[in-house]
C-alpha cells in the first residue's frame, strides 16, 4: 500500500529533482563564494560564460565532456550488473598503455588503421585490467570495491615503473614516452572541420568526441535491447531471480566488468591519442572518480550520462575560467563547487524526494487505479 505513495512521474524524477539538487549545490556554493568576499551572481555569470560563452571555451567543455562520458558509461554498465566499479581510473591508465603502444610502434600504418588499432588496444587493456577484479569477485568473492581500488594503486605503480624505467626514451628526464608521430595523432576538431571548410577556434576537442557519442548509443542498445543487457540487468537487480532463470552471475560479473573497463580505456584515446600525443604520468587526473558521480547523476542512462558529463565538463572549463578571472576564487574553490554538486546530485540524491512526493500528491490527487 505504502509503495504507491512514492511513485512519481518521470518528468519529476528525471527533471525536477536533479534540477533542485543542482540548485541546492549552487546555493551552497554561492554562500561559500560570499564568505570569501566575492559576488556569487557574478561568479556564476563568469562560470557559464567560461564554459559556453566563446568558441574556445565550448571546445574545452566538450573535450572534458568526452572524458566524463567514457568514465560515466563505464561505471553505469557495471552498476547495471550490481557492481560498484570504482577502478575506472586504473582501467583508463592501462588503456593509455595500450593506445600508446600502438601509436609508438605501429606508426608506419595509415592513420585510420592506427586509430582503429589504438581504440581496440585501449579497450583491450582497460578490459583486461577490469577483468581481474571481476574474476576475483565472481570466483573468489573478493569484493569488487576493494579490489578495484587496489588495482588503481597497482596501475599507478606499474605505470610509474614503465614510464621511468622502460618507456621513457634515453636521455629524456621527464617520465614520459616520446611524442607520437604526426601520423599517429587523432585530428583535432578544428583541424578536421577546417578540411571541410568550417572554421572554429582551436581547442583540445578532437574526433574522440564522436566515439563518445557512439558509445552512448551502443551502451543504450546493449543494456536495453540485447539479451546480454537483459541478463546484466537481471543480475544487477535480483541475483536470486537470475539464479532461478539460469543466468550465471559469475559469468555476467566478468563480462560486465570487462565492458566497463573497455569503456574506461577509451578515456585514453581522447587524452593520449587526441590531446597529449604521448603517454605521461597521471593523465587520468581523477576523471575516473568523477565518472561515478556522472553516472549516478545521469541515473545510469546514456542520455542522462551525456548531460551530466556536459555539466561536469562545463564546471571544469567554467571553473578554470573563474579562477583565472577571480584570483580569490582559487582552483581549489572550484573543486569545492564540483564537490558540492557531487554531494547534492549523487550522495544526497533523494534529499528532496519526500517533500516533492508530498507536494505532488497534494497538487495532483488524481487517484490512480488502486493496486488492491
Amino acid at each position, binding site marked *: 500500500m505504502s509503495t504507491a505513495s512514492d511513485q512519481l512521474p518521470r518528468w519529476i524524477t528525471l527533471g525536477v529533482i536533479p534540477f533542485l539538487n543542482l540548485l541546492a549545490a549552487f546555493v551552497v556554493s554561492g554562500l561559500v563564494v560570499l564568505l570569501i568576499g566575492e559576488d556569487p551572481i557574478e561568479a556564476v555569470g563568469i562560470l557559464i560564460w567560461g564554459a559556453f560563452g566563446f568558441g574556445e571555451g565550448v571546445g574545452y567543455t566538450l573535450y572534458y565532456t568526452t572524458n566524463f562520458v567514457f568514465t560515466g558509461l563505464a561505471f553505469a554498465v557495471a552498476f547495471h550488473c550490481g557492481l560498484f566499479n570504482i577502478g575506472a581510473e586504473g582501467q583508463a591508465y592501462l588503456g593509455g598503455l595500450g593506445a600508446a603502444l600502438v601509436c609508438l610502434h605501429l606508426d608506419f600504418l595509415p592513420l585510420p588503421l592506427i586509430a582503429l588499432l589504438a581504440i581496440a588496444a585501449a579497450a583491450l587493456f582497460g578490459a583486461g585490467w577490469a577483468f581481474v577484479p571481476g574474476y576475483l569477485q565472481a570466483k573468489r568473492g573478493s569484493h569488487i570495491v576493494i579490489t578495484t581500488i587496489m588495482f588503481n594503486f597497482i596501475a599507478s605503480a606499474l605505470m610509474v615503473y614503465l614510464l621511468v624505467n622502460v618507456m621513457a626514451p634515453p636521455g629524456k628526464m621527464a617520465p614520459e614516452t616520446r611524442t607520437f608521430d604526426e601520423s599517429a595523432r587523432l585530428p583535432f576538431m578544428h583541424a578536421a572541420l577546417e578540411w571541410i571548410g568550417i572554421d572554429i577556434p582551436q581547442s583540445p576537442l578532437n574526433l574522440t568526441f564522436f566515439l563518445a557519442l557512439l558509445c552512448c548509443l551502443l551502451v543504450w542498445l546493449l543494456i536495453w535491447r*540485447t539479451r546480454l543487457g537483459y541478463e546484466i540487468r537481471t543480475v544487477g537487480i*535480483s541475483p536470486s531471480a537470475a539464479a*532461478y532463470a*539460469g543466468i550465471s552471475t559469475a559469468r555476467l560479473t566478468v563480462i560486465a566488468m570487462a565492458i566497463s573497463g573497455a569503456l574506461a580505456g577509451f578515456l585514453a584515446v581522447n587524452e593520449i591519442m587526441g590531446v597529449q600525443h604521448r603517454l605521461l604520468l597521471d593523465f587520468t587526473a581523477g576523471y575516473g572518480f568523477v565518472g561515478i558521480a556522472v553516472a549516478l547523476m545521469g541515473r545510469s542512462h546514456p542520455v542522462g550520462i551525456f548531460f551530466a558529463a556536459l555539466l561536469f565538463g562545463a564546471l571544469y572549463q567554467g571553473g578554470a575560467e573563474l579562477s583565472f578571472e577571480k584570483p580569490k576564487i582559487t582552483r581549489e574553490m572550484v573543486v569545492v563547487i564540483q564537490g558540492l554538486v557531487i554531494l547534492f546530485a549523487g550522495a544526497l540524491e533523494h534529499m528532496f524526494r519526500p517533500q516533492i512526493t508530498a507536494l505532488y500528491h497534494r497538487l495532483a490527487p488524481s*487517484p490512480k487505479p488502486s493496486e488492491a
Partner: protein
Amino acid sequence: MTASAPAIELRGINKSFGPVHANKNINLSVENATIHGIVGENGAGKSTLMSILYGFYQADSGEIQVDGKPTRIADSEAAIAAGIGMVHQHFMLVEPFTVLENVILGAEGGGRLAGGMGKAREELERLEREYGLDVDPDATIESLSVGAQQRVEILKALFRGARILILDEPTGVLTPKEADELFKILHVLKEQGTTVVLITHKLREIMAATDNVSVMRQGEMVATRKTAETSMEELAELMVGRKVLLRVDKTPAEPGDEALKVENLTVRGGRGVLRVKDVSFNVKRGEIVGIAGVAGNGQSELLEAIAGIRHAEAGRVLIEGQPIGVKDSADPAILRERGVAHVPEDRHRMGLVMPFEEYENSILGYHNAQRYQSGLLLNLGVIRDDAMDKIEKFDIRPPNCRLKTSNFSGGNQQKIVLAREIETDPTVLLIGQPTRGVDIGAIEFIHRRIVELRDAGKAILLVSVELDEIMSLADRILVMFDGTLVGERAGGTATEGELGLMMAGIDGREAAQ
C-alpha cells in the same frame, strides 16, 4: 467502564497513502470479552486499520473509543497504556534471551534488574496459571517451538496489562495442532474477560474460533456478522464481491507414465545444514503430487534442488527416465530445455524482477529462445506480442505489458509467473506456494488452471504450507518433516487431523492409528 460499552469502537476512520485510500470511513464495534475476526483479501486494508489501532499510523480522520472513552493513540506506548496489545505475524523476540527477559523488555522497572526481575517472575507465573499459558520462564527463546514462542508474545502483551489483544495472521507458522492449542488459549483469555481481535485470511479459522466477524473489501468495512449466523461461502462472497467456488472441482486423476523421479536426494541448505535427507518419490503424468509440511522442513530446498537452482549433495533426478544433473552441473536453463517449468515459492525474490516491465518478466528464463532474437538484438515486437497474448489468456490486470511489475497486485504478479511457465508447454511443472499472498478471486483461477494442466497430462509437483490447498488439489499427498518424507496419503481420503500429526513429525503408520 460500563459493562455494555464495546471494548473498541471505531467511527469514520479514514486513511490515505498518497492516491491510495486504504481505509474508507470505517466503523467497527468490538464487544467486550469476545473474539472478533477481521477478514479480507490482501490490500483490503486490514493491516492498515490495525496499525491505526496500535498507533503505528495516524488516521486522517475519525474517532477511536476504547471502553467507551474517546482515546487518541499517538504511538504504540499510548496503545499499551490504553490496554491494547498486539501479537505480530513475525515475532518480535530476542532469540538468545530467556522468556522472562523477553517479557520484561521495555518494562524492566528501575535501574537494577534484580528487583524488577523478582516481581516480574511472580507476575509472569500468575499470568501463566490464570490463562493456562504454559512456558518455562527460564528457557531461551531459540530453544522453544514456534507455538511456544507465540505464547511468549501473548504473555508479553498480557504482562503490559493488555485487555484487548490483536493477533495478526497468527496461524501462518503453526501446525494444525499448534493452531488448535492457540484457539484454546484464546478461549480461556475470552473467559477471563480479554477481548481478542483476530486478523486472518483463513475462513476456516474464523468459523472455528470467533464470535463475530467483520469483512473488509477495498478499504471498506462491508459487513459484520455473528459467526454462528454466517457461512464460509457468504464470507468469501463478501470478501471478493462476487460468488466464489471454494471447493476445487476435479475428477479423479488418471496417472500415466512416470515423468519425474527423485531418488535418494540429499540437499544442504544455508550454513551447511542438511535440509533434505535421502528423499525418494515420483510424479506421473496427469497427477498432482502435493508436499505438505510446516514451513522450514526442507520443502523449499527440495523444490530448488529439483529445479536446478540449488546443488544436491547426493541422489539423482530423472525426467522421463533420463537423469539430469542436479549435483555438480545443476542448471535451470538446461532443465527448462528438458521441459521442467518452475513456479518458485517466492515470486518477489525469484520468479520476477520487480522493477522490470511486465513483458521483460514474461521471458525470464526463456529469453534465450530463438524466436525472441533478431540478429544481435532482442526482438521486442515478438516479445511484447507474446506478453499481451499471455495477459489475455490469464486475464492479467491491468492488461498493459509496459507497466512495471511491482505495480501489479500479488494475484496478478503470480499470474504473470504462471502464464510464463505454463505457456511453454512443460512436461513437469514444479509449483511452490501458488497462492501465497494471492486474493481469493485469483486463487480460484489459479487452482482451476492447475487442475486443467493435470488433465492435459502434465506431471505436477505442488509444494504448499496451506494444508487446505494441498488437500483440495493433490491426488497424492506426501508429508515432509525435518527433511524426510514421513508419510503418504491419497488425496481424497486423507484427514486434516492425520496429516497434521504427520506434519508434527509423527510417522505415517502411527498417525493412522
